[in-house]
């Protein structure tokens, strides 16, 4: 008897769980050959709502963890991705990539996670400063995570864009709601399984699939989202900027080829940090010659 193939149900990822979209809808993105990639959840604004609630709930614990621990967990994500490289390469090829390109993309994604894992317990020292002031204060600035970040992942890549935008956000202690590439969603969905088995607390990364045009509004007007990262057209970004005025979200527009080795740097972490400056009253230190 011929065996029936067991097909995967592509679900979204909210609060460490894999629900279907509350709307019950799906869509079928096509690959270059005109074949449907699968039945993908067509998330609604209520999924956005649920995901933001989950991200907010996770924020206190995640941002409060020791930086070293966050680094370990990011490293663990890379380990889990390494272990599943075959699956990701298959999915990339299914979505129109060649084998060689697929392998390169998975390698780049793993390396990117390692890169940001390393930064977790270092960026505060590098970005922070002790500031010269003309009074008896010890004045210093430290970087703190902004909170919940909305991410619209790069539309043209399935894995590397998503990983490159998400990793610096969570490395900096934020939690996020990430919307996968509309036409190439498979790797983001599968990445949720990697996250789920990597000691990442539920809610730190929430992943939605669906139409960007439908999800931009609820996510960028949401008063409980503190920043938005967007990779895509200028027109949509203008709309995002206007909506973000409501609670003065930090907005970032990326137009870059995420597969390049220089598409990773410390400032991608800094974009999603708030600087806190403290004026700590002291007696004069170091006498009259001191600058701080």
């Amino acid at each position, binding site marked *: 008897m011929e065996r029936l193939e067991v097909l995967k149900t592509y679900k979204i990822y909210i609060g460490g769980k894999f629900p279907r979209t509350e709307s019950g809808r799906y869509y079928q993105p096509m690959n270059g050959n005109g074949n449907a990639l699968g039945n993908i959840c067509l998330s609604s604004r209520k999924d*956005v*709502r649920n995901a*933001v609630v989950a991200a907010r709930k996770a924020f206190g614990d995640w941002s409060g963890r020791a930086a070293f621990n966050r680094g370990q967990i990011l490293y663990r994500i890379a380990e889990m991705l390494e272990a599943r490289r075959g699956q990701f390469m298959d999915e990339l090829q299914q979505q129109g990539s060649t084998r060689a390109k697929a392998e390169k993309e998975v390698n780049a994604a793993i390396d990117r996670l390692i890169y940001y894992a390393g930064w977790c317990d270092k960026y505060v020292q590098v970005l922070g400063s002790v500031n010269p002031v003309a009074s008896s204060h010890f004045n210093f600035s430290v970087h703190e995570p902004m909170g919940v970040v909305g991410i619209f992942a790069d539309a043209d890549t399935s894995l590397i864009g998503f990983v490159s935008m998400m990793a610096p956000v969570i490395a900096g202690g934020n939690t996020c709601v990430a919307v996968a590439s509309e036409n190439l969603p498979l790797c983001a969905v599968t990445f949720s399984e990697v996250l789920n088995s990597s000691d990442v607390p539920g809610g730190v990364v929430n992943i939605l699939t669906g139409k960007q045009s439908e999800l931009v509004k*609820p996510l960028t*007007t*949401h*008063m*409980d989202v503190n920043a938005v990262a967007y990779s895509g057209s200028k027109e949509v970004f203008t709309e995002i900027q206007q909506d973000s005025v*409501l*609670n003065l979200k930090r907005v970032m527009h990326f137009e870059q080829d995420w597969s390049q080795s220089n598409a990773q740097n410390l400032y991608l972490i800094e974009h999603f940090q708030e600087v806190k400056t403290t004026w700590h009253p002291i007696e004069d230190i170091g006498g009259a010659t001191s600058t701080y």
Partner: protein
Amino acid sequence: MTKRNNPITLPDFSKSTRVDKVGVEERVSRFQKRSIKGEAKLQGLKMALNMIDLTTLEGKDSPGKVRQMCFKAQHLHDVHPGLPTVAAVCVYPSMVGIAKKEVAGSGVKVASVSAAFPAGQAPIDVKIRDTRFAVDEGADEIDMVISRGKYLAGEYNFVFDEIATIKEASGNARLKVILETGELVTLDDVRRASDIAMYAGADFIKTSTGKIQPAATMQVTYTMLQAIRDFRLETGIKVGMKPAGGISSAKLALHNLVMVKEVLGNEWLTNDGFRFGASSLANDLLMQIMKVETGIYQSSDYFAID
């Protein structure tokens, strides 16, 4: 607070109606499938706001904390005009005087927990003094706990007498009787304790202290609502219901209102018939109200801490 004119025959509480747990769960799950949208939702949210007993019952409660809560009770979200106040503030007896002064003239009532809340492990004369103190300080409502240990030992008469005694000590204050259903465990016992409380003179029956889990599950509230309905049919007296503990979302509050309407009817849909014992519920209701009116999802950053 209906006057009891007719003599009421006391039933044998050991023969209280038994509860079909599976049936209750089935029925309760249906209350959660109603779709309430738009204007109806808005009215429901505002109704729920007006039914809240805004509560602080912590060992660390201070006059400042109580004053802040009393202010919140009267100014839920001044950015949005036309909102109701909550029904009452609920505090420990030692804080009643402060709360009473803060809410004077606003229509917000002051409820005090009593009878050696939350455990109820004290002799009756202490419980009477506890209650009289709260009433003398100006409490409009008394939330007493029953002696669960005695109840579970089968001493129903003891529990009945204790409630009746506290009722007497409460004078004109409205008496809410806390069953602490999380310690009673079974729905049969929730039903029996409800019956005992109502026949002993409760004006409201209340699920929990908020100190024990599980607290106000919909199954428990449904069982108590049924007891209230049957008591009304039997005696003609309207007793109120107060689920407390664990109701922190607007959605759950609306489910509860649907349940009250379908079990008891519109007569109970005011804060004379139904209350929510909660603290964080108020902000979620406010956020939902603002969401309905503006179309934008809200953040707790923009609502007062309670």
